[in-house]
């Protein structure tokens, strides 16, 4: 809003030339982050109290990890806070006609909505097991993925119809091949996988939010580069007109995320719930696709991927099919806890891993 009002005022009189500042991504990014952080700080204490009063507390699932039982009774739905802060900040500071921005925001809100429904059911039915069914969740996510693909591959694709179906591989200068229609299937699976991977990672205090910030931050760098003709040309990336707006979007997320971490750090006063983890997952998936970095995600978001894979392998192959455990416990963070690491130690070590992976990923900007 501020962006649009500022632009309009500028066009009215030269005296308001200083509002040119609003044209700069860097300025708006910083302001978006600060606004989001401020909103979270202002709302959180009240929000947390309200959640306690309404008994909107986490119902813990039986995981066999002792410390998980301590966590029952922590308010959940922190994701709502995250999404509200982000959305307000984005509405204030972003160019709301930018298709990249609108698609990313839609992913955030849609996936957040699914998570919210799930959280709501779990809390009102008083059980960690009785949320939305797995199938219902996947169908709802799939619906968005289909719509997203339709826009992305359609004639009004924000990246341009020619670029949309190209498959970019990290460390290679040129797109590997044009997947054509199969690209749709590919990103369909990709979106579902990534969205749920963050959900699975969200098992310890602060474990999901910080790595998400690292991943989103790295993607913001890509957005900045690809949205700038000079950098894109220099680093030989396809120039995507307007994609730089995603830098502001991600900044709002980083701000909201840091604010959330303030309360979510061990011992947590609030959890993001499925609302937060699915929203973040959906957002990261959309960002990766929009920036043509789907194949970088296994490296950049390697932590999320390993968490998701260990969990699925343990459950689907080990426990249900073979009748044995394949890892001591799953997902990864529970396995580490089982090996005798304190929760904080697990979380900080995995932050470090996520940070290193983000650094490695940024190296692909140049090493190609």
């Amino acid at each position, binding site marked *: 809003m501020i962006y649009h009002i500022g632009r309009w005022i500028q066009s009215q009189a030269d005296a308001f030339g200083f509002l040119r500042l609003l044209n700069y991504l860097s300025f708006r990014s910083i302001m978006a982050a600060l606004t989001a952080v401020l909103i979270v700080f202002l709302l959180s204490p009240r929000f947390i109290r309200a959640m306690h009063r309404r008994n909107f507390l986490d119902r813990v699932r039986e995981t066999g990890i002792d410390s998980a039982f301590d966590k029952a009774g922590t308010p959940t739905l922190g994701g709502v806070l995250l999404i509200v802060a982000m959305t307000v900040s984005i509405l204030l500071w972003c160019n709301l006609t930018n298709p990249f921005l609108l698609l990313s925001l839609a992913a955030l809100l849609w996936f957040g909505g699914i998570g919210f429904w799930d959280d709501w059911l779990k809390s009102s039915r008083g059980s960690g097991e009785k949320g939305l069914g797995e199938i219902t969740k996947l169908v709802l996510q799939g619906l968005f993925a289909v719509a997203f693909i339709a826009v992305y591959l359609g004639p009004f694709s924000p990246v341009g119809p020619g670029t949309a179906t190209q498959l970019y591989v990290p460390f290679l200068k040129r797109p590997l091949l044009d997947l054509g229609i199969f690209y749709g299937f590919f990103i369909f699976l990709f979106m579902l996988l990534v969205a749920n991977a963050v959900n699975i990672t969200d098992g310890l205090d602060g474990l999901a939010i910080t790595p998400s910030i690292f991943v989103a931050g790295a993607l913001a760098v890509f957005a900045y580069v690809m949205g700038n003709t000079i950098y894109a040309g220099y680093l030989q990336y396809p120039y995507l007109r307007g994609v730089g707006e995603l830098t502001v979007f991600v900044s709002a997320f980083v701000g909201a995320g840091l604010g959330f971490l303030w309360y979510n750090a061990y011992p947590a006063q609030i959890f993001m719930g499925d609302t937060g983890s699915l929203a973040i997952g959906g957002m990261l998936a959309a960002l990766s696709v929009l920036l043509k970095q789907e194949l970088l995600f296994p490296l950049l978001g390697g932590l999320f991927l390993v968490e998701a894979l260990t969990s699925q392998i343990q459950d689907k192959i080990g426990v249900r099919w073979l*009748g*044995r455990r394949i890892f001591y416990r799953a997902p990864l963070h529970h396995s580490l806890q089982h090996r005798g*690491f304190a929760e904080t*130690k697990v979380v900080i070590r995995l932050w470090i891993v996520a940070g290193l992976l983000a650094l490695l990923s940024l190296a692909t900007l140049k090493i190609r």
Partner: protein
Amino acid sequence: MPVPIPAGRRVIFAFGGSQGARTINRALVDALAYLLPRRNDIFVIHGVGLMKTPEYHAWEDTSQRLQREYNEEEREHINSFYYAQDYFHNIGDIYAVSDLIVCRGGAGSLNEISAMGKSALIIPKANLPGNHQVMNARAMKRSGGAEVIFEDTVEDGGILLEEVVGQKLAMKILSLLDAKQRLEEMGKCSRAFMNHYAAERIAAEIHGSPLPNSSLTDISAKDLDPLLSDNELLVQLRSAWQEDQKQYEPRKVIVDADDLEYYRHRAASLLTSPSWPDRNLGVKLIGLLKHEEKLSSLLHLLADRTPVSRLQKFFGGDYRQVGFIRRNALISLQILNTWGPEVEARVFEALEDGYYEVRAQAASTMGHFAEKLLQKQAVTEKLLLLIKDRSFEVVREVVLALGAVGGNREVAKGLLGLKEHHYWQVREAALRAVAMLVERRIVTDRDWLLNETSRFILTTTDFRSYSDIKETYRKLHALCKGDEEED
């Protein structure tokens, strides 16, 4: 009267519905051997049933069994108190002369028996939808009109069969016949069991008129606790067990003795299921229900080395009795708390199992039965080898077992060698095990111990248990020093 019953005999009528029941037919033929000595004061009428399928031909199977099980002389005696017929058109007459009726738990049979006011020995058919025969049998038994025997599910050459042991059936029949007073009371209760005057009730309902007999008001089902599903049963039993392992008794959870008996049968039948999650559930329930008769089945599962498909092997599967089953079989052995040479052999084998949880549980089970293993050098040696296991969970359990079983200074040396082990859980277990050795007076050289243990790494990566290892260390030192002062 179509059946020639000699005067003064007590009459038993056994039948499994119009088609016949394999379980009842076979059990009855086997029971005759035990009823034989009473041939002068009882008479058995057997309704064999009309079933003639390729799987089971009621009449032929029964007569063949009689031929096979008894010699000519015995058969002659049997004929003096046993009469078989495939079907009775006049079943009312047969009921009328019977003192005890052995039958299935179908609603039809029980209604007839109740209408006749006869006492029943019910063998409900197992594994039916909703277990309705079991529910019927329980209801009638609760009302006092019947006794119940449950059938076992056994595997016979790859085919699943339900069976009741003949001797058990015979003993039950005789004990009921001999308690005349009780049998009479059962007959009365049986008559009161069903809701009679159905036509009058319906008429009264339609016309909105009062019931013809004021004693007919209660037509609600008899109050009975619903049967628990296997999973519900598991949850209830396990929470009781976890609450107090030493005082645990399944009887405290399942108060009704018949229900407990039934659950035991059901758990046993799970062991024969082709799906491993069912067998696994059965294994857990056998232990928690303390079904000691099935101990050998547990041992059998542990020894079963039937391999799984190649595909499953590729992903890490091993045997048909999957890792969880083997691990839980060991836990159940521990709950059953019965030790013997065969149990020992299986647990000893399990120490070398390919799956780490089984090795860990085997070590833990060894520790549980430590008293029986104190003199066995082979066990200690085997456990000492396992200190080098890949999995820290195994090492931890092995170390604790060594503390309970170990009988010499070598064990202590082995344990002290773990002072720099990567996992603090193992180091903590080692200190605890050393303390056990001191308490058991296996190690008395305290100065050496104090010196050696002082080199243990006591820091941990987990604040929640940070105190654990230091606490154990302090206790051990207190123990060593305390002993010193005593001397």
